[in-house]
């Protein structure tokens, strides 16, 4: 609109990337300049992303802008291009907009008080802002890229930043929260590494999948993939092997999102990712990182939908996506029931909500009304981005005030921090899917899509999960803001440390996000009303006018039932304090949930333990032999070299003689060869 689309589409990720690189330079000038520039870069990015959206609304069209050709090899070419369509713009707005609010929030959040009560900034803020901007830039690069390879580059940038940011406080000397490590810093570093390693498992699959897909189709470009997918003669000419490989490639590609978006069986890293600053958690959960996986699936679902027509077996991709999503949603929700740390609850809820998105996206390929399911998935992506950012930032505000992570150290904070509490509650309502928040609309759409499409069992799983979600969400609200004050809070007050509301730089993002979460239901109208013409210009020309908007019906009743069934017990138990569930908590079920279904333990046994066992065995049996071999080789060559060197007397006669002997040798060779 203000900036030409083809320019804005590039700048929107170049600006934060350049901002990241310049951060150390600004840090030289001064800490304030650096912080201000980071915020400025964040808002410039957000502005560009919003501007792209505006252009998209005014002139709806999907356009591939190629900047330069990277390399040409025979029939293949690799371009550096950006793809502007509603999906990429939506993700860019989420990453840029929410990212900018998070960076603004960081100004206040990353300031602490030292022993004398003076305000001090974290000493490694340069690193922090560098990686935050790189994170946002990498995420936007990922979503704007017009080909899988560029997306993969952004994907890796995001992964690397998540590692650096989760382990950001790697030198904190406080005692570790987990017994296995000496200091909290060490624990944080290990958490960063865990996130990196686990997502990397998926990344390998993703890379392999991308390459196999390239082998089959000969292109990385989304537009070309889409046009090939609908091409029946192309599919017919594939041959048996390649068309059998196609579902394999699709599943391997899905391994990437499984890792990145923390789905079963690679969900184990996300709870540990809470070790980083809360702002980082907010960025990972709401704007970047985990959304990358959903984006990639959303980007490729239209391609694979078209392929199901021509290639046998691609449906297995959608079944996998939908069922992994639904199962993960349920599993994570059960784990969230027993968590005591506010951020852990939020982490499990993220896994669970991502599961919803995958359920919807997967269902898009299973049901006849694929448009509804697809749009439900993407809309839930937007909704989740808003309310999860809000919840995390509000939680950060609470943590900042209470200086503890555990909800048992909170309670009754409502009167001290009304804005935080109110905004947090709005976020919680959205998470629980209560009317009229944005979460209500998006969840209702997913249920609708599943039910209409005849995916009854997926629907049941999603529905049960929703009840659990409502319960644990309000358990968290009541434990944090209502009820009796905890001993920890009393002690803080006794030491003259008043629980205080967050500063304005932290309050503004909260209010903005709360407004969006509350009024976001209108988005459904905007999204599918005003946006419907551009919806048709999505990479896959869906007929968006056929979207089934919300209507009163039996489903509405069921949805209302979720709140009642979910929130009422939470109110009774955690606000009123009725009932004693300690026996249940400590019973086998409670332990099972607390230990996260023992998945983590199993991985630790099998992968870490097994690896160590293997490595010890190899060291003892194989490596020693190899070492001996290499030592012998080295010594042998050494003595050859030393012995030969003795003949190198440098005496001229020898040299001439050798040359003459060479002639003789050559003549012999010529004669006998």
């Amino acid at each position, binding site marked *: 609109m203000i900036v030409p689309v083809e320019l804005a589409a590039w700048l929107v990720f170049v600006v934060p990337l350049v901002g990241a690189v310049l951060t150390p330079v600004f840090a030289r000038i001064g800490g304030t300049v650096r912080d201000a520039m980071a915020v400025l870069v964040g808002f410039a990015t957000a502005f560009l992303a919003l501007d792209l959206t505006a252009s998209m609304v005014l002139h709806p069209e999907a356009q591939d802008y190629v900047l330069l050709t990277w390399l040409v090899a025979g029939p293949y070419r690799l371009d550096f291009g950006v793809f502007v369509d509603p999906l990429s713009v939506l993700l860019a707005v989420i990453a840029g907009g929410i990212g900018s609010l998070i960076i603004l929030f960081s100004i206040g959040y990353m300031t602490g008080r030292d022993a004398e009560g003076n305000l001090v900034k974290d000493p490694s803020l340069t690193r922090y802002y560098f990686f935050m901007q790189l994170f946002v830039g990498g995420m936007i690069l990922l979503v704007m890229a017009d080909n899988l390879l560029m997306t993969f580059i952004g994907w890796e940038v995001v992964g690397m930043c998540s590692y650096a940011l989760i382990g950001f406080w790697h030198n904190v000397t406080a005692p570790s929260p987990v017994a296995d490590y000496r200091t909290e810093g060490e624990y944080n570093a290990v958490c960063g590494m865990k996130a990196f390693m686990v997502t990397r498992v998926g990344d390998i699959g993703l890379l392999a999948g991308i390459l196999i897909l390239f082998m089959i189709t000969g292109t990385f470009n989304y537009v070309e993939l889409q046009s090939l997918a609908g091409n029946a003669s192309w599919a017919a000419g594939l041959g048996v092997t390649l068309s059998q490989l196609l579902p394999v490639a699709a599943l391997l590609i899905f391994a990437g999102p499984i890792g990145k978006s923390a789905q079963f069986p690679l969900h184990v890293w996300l709870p540990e990712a809470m070790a980083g600053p809360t702002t980082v958690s907010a960025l990972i959960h709401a704007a970047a990182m985990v959304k990358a996986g959903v984006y990639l699936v959303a980007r490729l679902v239209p391609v694979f939908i078209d392929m199901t027509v021509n290639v046998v077996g691609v449906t297995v991709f959608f079944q996998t996506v939908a069922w992994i999503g639904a199962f993960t949603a349920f599993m994570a929700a059960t784990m969230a029931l027993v968590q005591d740390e506010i951020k852990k609850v939020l982490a499990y809820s993220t896994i669970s909500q991502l599961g919803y998105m995958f359920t919807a996206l997967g269902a898009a390929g299973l049901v006849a009304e694929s448009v509804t399911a697809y749009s439900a998935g993407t809309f839930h992506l937007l909704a989740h981005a808003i309310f999860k950012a809000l919840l995390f930032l509000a939680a950060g505000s609470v943590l900042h005030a209470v200086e503890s992570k555990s909800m048992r150290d909170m309670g009754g904070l409502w009167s001290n921090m009304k804005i935080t509490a109110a905004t947090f509650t709005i976020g919680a309502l959205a998470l629980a899917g209560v009317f009229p928040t944005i979460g209500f609309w998006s969840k209702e759409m997913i249920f609708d899509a599943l039910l209409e499409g005849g995916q009854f069992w997926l629907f049941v799983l999603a529905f049960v999960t929703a009840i659990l979600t409502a319960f644990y969400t309000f358990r968290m609200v009541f434990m944090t803001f209502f009820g009796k004050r905890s001993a920890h809070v009393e002690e803080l007050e006794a030491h003259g440390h008043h629980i205080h509301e967050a500063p304005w730089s932290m309050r503004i993002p909260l209010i903005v996000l709360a407004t969006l979460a509350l009024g976001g239901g209108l988005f459904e109208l905007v999204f599918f009303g005003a946006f419907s013409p551009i919806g048709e210009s999505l990479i896959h020309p869906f007929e968006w006018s056929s979207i089934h908007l919300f209507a009163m019906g039996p489903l509405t009743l069921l949805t209302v039932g979720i709140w009642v069934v979910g929130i009422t017990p939470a109110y009774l138990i955690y606000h009123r304090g009725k009932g004693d569930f300690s026996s249940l908590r400590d019973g086998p079920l409670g332990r099972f949930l607390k230990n996260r279904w023992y998945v983590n333990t199993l991985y630790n046994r099998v992968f870490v333990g097994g690896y160590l066992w293997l490595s010890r065995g190899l060291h003892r049996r194989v490596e020693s032999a190899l070492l001996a071999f290499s030592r012998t080789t*080295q010594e042998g*060559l*050494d003595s*050859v*070299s*030393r012995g*030969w*060197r003795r003949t*190198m007397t*440098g005496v*001229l006669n*020898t*040299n*001439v003689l*050798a*040359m003459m*002997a*060479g*002639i003789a*040798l*050559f*003549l012999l*060779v*010529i004669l006998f*060869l």
Partner: protein
Amino acid sequence: MILSVLAQLVRTVFSPFTQWLVGNIPADWLGSVPVFTIIAFGVIALAVGQRTNPLPVSAIGLLLTGLETVLIDNDVYGSSFGGLFARSHFADLFIWIILVVGFLVLLSSTTFYGDRATFHSLLLISIGGTMWTVMATDLVALFLAWELMSMPTYVLAALGPSRAAVDGAVKYFVMGLLATVLMLFGIALLYGLTGTTDIAAIGAALQSYFSSPTLELSAVATSLLAMVLFVIAFGFKIGAFPGWMWVPDTYSSADGSLAAFLAGGTKKAGVGALMRIMIVGFIVVRLQWMPLIVLVSILTMLIGNILALRQQNIMRMLAYSSIAMMGYLFIGLAVGTQFGAAAAMFHAFVHALMKTSAFILVWALTVRLRRQVTYDELVGLSSRAPFASGLLAVLMLSLAGMPPTAGLLSKIFLFGSAIEVGMWWLALIGTLNSVLSLGYYLRVLRVCYMAPPEDAERLRLARGPLVAATLGVIGVLVLFINPSIVLDYANIAASQLFG
């Protein structure tokens, strides 16, 4: 692509000068004008150098030569002296190698005992001779150019800082004479056989001999003997088996700048001349010379790498490594295909860049420390001279054939060309040799970066050598990112050669 655009630009800007040259110089001489220029500047440098440092004169001369090489288009004014010397893409590739090496050597020239005038004058004349050597299409012209190239270097080698230099120079001289004699003998044999000294005509004559139904055994034997003599004579300058023994003695005792020139410049002239003779003249007996070149290649690689392992003196180590490098280069010649030849030329270019820079850098260190540089002198170099140490590290990586340097690509191309024609075993031997070579290249990196310095004092090296080495390192890195700058040119050159 980039090169042709640049050349077009230069030609447009200097078109009046080109007009003047074309108008005032006989057309038959035009191809050799760059050579005249550099020899003339050699004489001027001798005169100027009596009073002052002639470096500006030499540098201007070299740049002017380069300019003329661009301006005088080799497609139009290639041939000179009735076709004795001809510039083609093939010759020009080697001319550029020589000019680049000459420029780097001049930038970093160090002289002893006030012999500046001699040094510059002889160096420039030798560069001129080298250019003629790769242009020569006639064996007699080749012989003359060869001597013009070699003679000054015999003297230059003796100009080194110590008595040992004279010793090294004498060895080089005697062996050089021997090689020259062998070459002359080969020329005489060929002339006797074919009645001509033109290389292409010899090729045609041999073709007719070998395709005639009455194959005369004596003709075959004579031509093969001549071929063996050529391989040995040029192999001497290249430092390949069996004439490699002078290399370490001379390189390590002579002035390091000269070692850089010998390793980067004259060695490549030998490569160019040998490639031309083998491919243009002896292509008929390809099946005979291929095993010979393969043998030379393998032996040269092994000699260089194994003997380099135990060297303490870095200059000697580099000398042996340059022997090994020529072994790799011979793979490209041995496969006898166009791609192989192009790969060999690319390798020649890359090797010229990295070996010249490495010699210059180590020599600068030697001059600064006033003693022979061994691994002990390099200990902790990274903290004593971080920049120089970084340059050395990149050069060592490149010599070892590791990313992100052009040394990796040149080896990949060479080994790839061998695999292409089914000589995978040769590629395998080359790869194993590369692995072996890590033993001494990485040792440099280890002492530079992992050993704590005994002497923490900062080392300030002379600026000239540092600039020269930096240019070489930039070249090595740029050619990794975009090898096609040189490789495309080498492909054209190879296709002309096989034309």
